[in-house]
């Protein structure tokens, strides 16, 4: 029961989201900025949900760190787009990610206790894998502004760390 729910959540993220990201061929800088910022907000929202539901100290520490890091990266992104005079532009990829993760988070919100913790950790692992692949394969290569590209590269390095951390958390909760 739990396994199938978990599998469902993970499958939703793994299958649906990357398809959405790769659907837009070569996004523009304003679109890339929007996608990256949106991806950060989604993870902050998931972390806030975790802080509301979870009583596990490791899960809560992870969630607090997600909020801290993604808030900092997003603040840097906002400062950069302001400096560059770029207005982030909503697009199909952003919309698709929001829709799919909203569904995943709605399912998460119905869980409690260890069931929630495991699902949140698995979700975070899958989500960071998805975002990191998108950054590596699509967003970074498509970015034309050097500063935006550099920020995305820094972001990727941080989020790869999050992915490893999420992987540790998944194994710890087994």
């Amino acid at each position, binding site marked *: 029961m739990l396994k199938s729910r978990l599998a469902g959540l993970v499958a939703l993220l793994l299958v649906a989201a990357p398809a959405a990201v790769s659907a837009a061929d070569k996004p523009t800088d304003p679109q890339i900025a929007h996608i990256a910022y949106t991806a950060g907000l989604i993870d902050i929202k998931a972390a806030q949900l975790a802080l509301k539901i979870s009583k596990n100290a490791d899960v809560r520490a992870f969630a607090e760190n997600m909020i*801290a890091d993604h808030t*900092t990266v997003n603040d*840097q992104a906002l400062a950069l787009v302001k400096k560059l005079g770029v207005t982030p532009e909503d697009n199909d990829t952003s919309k698709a990610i929001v829709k799919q993760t909203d569904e995943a988070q709605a399912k998460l919100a119905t869980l409690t206790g260890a069931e929630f913790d495991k699902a949140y950790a698995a979700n975070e692992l899958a989500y960071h894998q998805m975002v990191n692949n998108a950054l590596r394969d699509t967003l970074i290569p498509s970015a034309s502004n050097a500063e935006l590209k550099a920020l995305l590269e820094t972001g990727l390095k*941080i989020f790869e*760390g999050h992915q490893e*951390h999420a992987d540790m958390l998944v194994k710890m909760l087994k």
Partner: protein
Amino acid sequence: MTAFRILALAGVAALAATLPVRAATIEVTISKFAFSPAEITAKPGDVIEWTNKDAFAHTATAKDKSFDVSVPANGKGTLTVPDKAGAFDYFCRFHPMMKGKLTVAK
């Protein structure tokens, strides 16, 4: 003259021997989510100073929990090396893939 010199030298030597060994400050930089240098050696009483150049808060936390130093974003954190010889693996609690090692040699 010679006797005086010897006396003076002996005096200096005696004074030096009674003074405690000066504690050293060992600096570690945190930049782009990495400790540099990643491995350091120190003596008890030395001070380790981590300087964080990232805009993200980090920690230097011993794997065995014997120390837990908070290193704020663009700030510093310090640790007075405990009087306990051994190798201490440490990491950042927020970013556990950041790893360092402190070897305490008496």
